[in-house]
């Protein structure tokens, strides 16, 4: 059972466009949603995160929009750059857990110059 789903599986945008990566979840007990960026052959690195009490979080070109009622969130990457080409994972943490993160399947983003 996939508790965190991401779409699309892969996304190609032109440099300068806004890339939109989607994520949905099923478990109402999830309260923290980080997005991780992973380059080939490297470990994932935290990009931006949001708590379920917020509906928006911005950090430079990266913005998370969160809809608790619909159990959906999205990552918007404005002014996409070729260096943003990577795999992006949406993850979710359950309240009171061991800090265990449940990861989605990832979205592979390619930014064409």
């Amino acid at each position, binding site marked *: 059972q996939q508790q965190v789903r991401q779409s699309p599986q892969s996304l190609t945008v032109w440099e300068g466009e806004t890339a939109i990566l989607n994520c949905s979840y099923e478990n109402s007990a999830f309260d*923290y949603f*980080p997005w*991780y960026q992973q380059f080939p*052959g*490297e*470990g*994932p*690195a*935290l990009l931006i*995160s949001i708590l379920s009490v917020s509906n928006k979080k911005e950090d430079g070109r990266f913005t998370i929009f969160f809809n608790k009622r619909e159990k959906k969130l999205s990552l918007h990457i404005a002014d996409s750059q070729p260096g943003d080409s990577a795999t992006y*994972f949406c*993850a979710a*943490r359950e309240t009171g857990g*061991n*800090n*265990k*993160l449940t*990861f*989605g*399947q*990832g979205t592979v983003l390619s930014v064409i110059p």
Partner: protein
Amino acid sequence: AQTIHQWPVAEIKAVGSPLSLGCTIKGKSSPNLYWYWQATGGTLQQLFYSITVGQVESVVQLNLSASRPKDDQFILSTEKLLLSHSGFYLCAWSLWGAGQNTLYFGAGTRLSVL
């Protein structure tokens, strides 16, 4: 500054052979430690976590074991590798407590079982 070091960087092993992967965290006292597994092109799955020396909890059964012999060291091992063990193994750490949410990953170990 905190650093996380995984070894080896890559391994090629035969089915049925033993395996030991290591992870060391420097610059943080008593971190939570985690082992994750990632299939090629796949998602990340938590295998083990540890909140203190000598205490390890298994999250999923994959014929692997983990140990925490020191506060800053986490070991993943098995006596008999399976083909299904191939993949990318990632060690991670976090701090414990309210608001301490971030997982910090190491560079990973690429394992190929032939």
